[in-house]
């Protein structure tokens, strides 16, 4: 009899826990973010101070965010991180909600250049704010100080036959067309004419022949670096990659090219399918605190929008990423580059 009672008690407790977890899951804030934007201790602090549980899904590329958000018409996530160049596409497709700045007290304390959001290209539309700048970095060049002498100053070093088979480039058509356009001296790398696109494509085919492999994640690039003779890395993940490589003892340095470095600026945005707008605002405001900003830069090396960092030097020319003329066209042309023998 006692045994039966025990079973019943256990079953009841089990059922109770099951119900509690499912209830907690239903109310949790659903966050889609890059690795490093929602560290477990921050999430814990956030939940402790607001009582809001958080489910984080990490992504590996801009395209993946688009596929996830567009695929569910914004219903699968409440808050996500996206860069300025991409944001307009989401606004146009009606996948994000405008943000009420009065609900974000910390936004008044950010660095001067991010304070007036109407001056930050890409985060507003028709006077409404859709993105809150959170984190930025340049896309520069990592070079092995033992193998590359003198220190490079321009991306044109990637075409140098001396480094054939020792270069890691990034597997993304949009960025590759933009930075190559800058290297070729085009004024607006995000709006290329048909002739310019053709010229860039030809240049990229040459680049491909000089490259060891195209990577997608920072970890992947690091693993390739460790097992191969790599001299130059087109650093899509900027400072994060430099830090990780230095940590494993690599003799590498970082440079923003003189023709201008592409630079990204990531923002927190609220999706159209947000379940609890107040919770999403609390998350964004929490992310703009001085503590998180400082820790973000300390851990990743990225510049944050709250505290001053040395992520990009004052004299470095940065070209904020923008919408490109035709992403599909660039993606197709990038496939053509890769398919060219």
């Amino acid at each position, binding site marked *: 009899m006692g045994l039966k009672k025990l079973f019943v008690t256990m079953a009841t407790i089990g059922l109770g826990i099951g119900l509690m977890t499912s209830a907690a899951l239903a109310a949790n804030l659903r966050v889609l973010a890059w690795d490093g934007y929602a560290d477990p201790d921050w999430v814990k602090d956030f939940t402790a101070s607001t009582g809001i549980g958080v489910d984080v899904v990490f992504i590996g*590329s801009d395209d993946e965010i688009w596929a996830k958000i567009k695929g569910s018409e914004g219903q699968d996530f409440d808050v996500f991180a996206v860069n300025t160049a991409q944001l307009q596409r989401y606004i146009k497709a009606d996948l994000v909600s405008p943000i009420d700045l009065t609900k974000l007290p910390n936004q008044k304390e950010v660095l001067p250049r991010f304070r007036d959001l109407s001056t930050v290209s890409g985060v507003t539309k028709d006077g409404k704010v859709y993105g809150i700048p959170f984190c930025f970095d340049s896309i520069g060049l990592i070079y092995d100080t033992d193998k590359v002498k003198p220190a490079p100053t321009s991306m044109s070093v990637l075409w140098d036959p001396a480094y054939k088979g020792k270069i890691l480039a990034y597997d993304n058509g949009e960025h590759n067309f933009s930075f190559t356009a800058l290297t070729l001296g085009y004024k607006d790398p995000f709006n290329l004419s048909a002739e310019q696109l053709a010229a860039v494509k030809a240049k990229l085919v040459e680049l*491909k022949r000089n490259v060891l492999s195209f990577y*997608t994640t920072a970890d992947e690039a690091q693993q390739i670096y460790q*097992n191969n003779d790599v001299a130059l890395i087109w650093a899509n993940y900027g400072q994060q990659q430099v830090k990780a490589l230095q940590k494993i003892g690599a003799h590498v340095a970082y440079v923003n090219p003189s023709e201008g470095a592409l630079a990204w600026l990531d923002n927190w945005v609220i999706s159209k399918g947000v379940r609890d707008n107040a919770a999403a605002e609390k998350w964004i405001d929490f992310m703009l605190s001085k503590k998180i900003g400082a820790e973000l830069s300390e851990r990743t090396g990225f510049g944050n929008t709250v505290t001053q960092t040395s992520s990009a030097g004052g004299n470095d020319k940065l070209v904020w990423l923008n919408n490109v003329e035709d992403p*599909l066209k660039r993606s197709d042309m990038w*496939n053509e580059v890769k398919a060219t023998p």
Partner: protein
Amino acid sequence: MSLLAAVLAFALPVVFVVVPLALFLVYSFFSVDQGTIVYAPTLGNYVRFVTDSIFVPVFWNTIVLCVSVAIICILIAYPAAYLLTTLKGRWRYALLMLLLVPLLMSYVIKIYAIRSILGLNGFLNKALVALGILQQPSTLFVFNMNAILLTLSVLLIPFAILPIFLSLERIPQTLLRASDDLGASGLQTFLRVTLPLSLPGVVSAASFVFVLAIGDFLTPQMVGGVSGFTFGRILYSQFGTAYNWPFGAALSVALAVVVICAILIGERFGRNRGTSV
């Protein structure tokens, strides 16, 4: 009750296999404009696949690659399976289990491991240099088609061993003894009895490996570098990068046609006639 079971038995494959495949087929006739799918039927995707200069050559190269993978797997798996059938009792199955253990491991982890073996400073190159076989590390197996060929072969060998082993095991011992009694040498018995009777297993194994290899995009993406561009990678890019699902669906349909042909060939020639003897 039995009616319910019958309905379920048909409904499950229909819902989970036929409907998704049909959706793919339907999507392949749509198009994309400014990141939105246009639901008006068009043959444009197929026309583009056939006329554009990049898709058909890559498609063909990928088929050649996967046939090569199948051949390599068979050449390695056949002796392994043959060796297994010569073992007695418990040993036979213990060793078979050992050969299948790699299947328990995560696919991605295996690729990562193989990638660090293949690198220019990887284990393979270091070993070859240390043994004096190479003067300096070779780039022959670093981020190219050869790397894909090697990696896929290593990953898929277990799938080739199993069907070959099963067909070899089914050959009645009496036939081999009869051949021996009639004065055939070991080699003659193998060539004229064992090999022909095990061919159905070989064909099934080849079609298995081919189908698995041609559907894989991860291995080429991770070890293929700049020259190892395969059809799976193009297909993948249509869903992730380009957000061109209709065109991706059309490419999938092209791939599915090849896969179905491979399976039909495997089925047609892979029937084990050994059992009817």
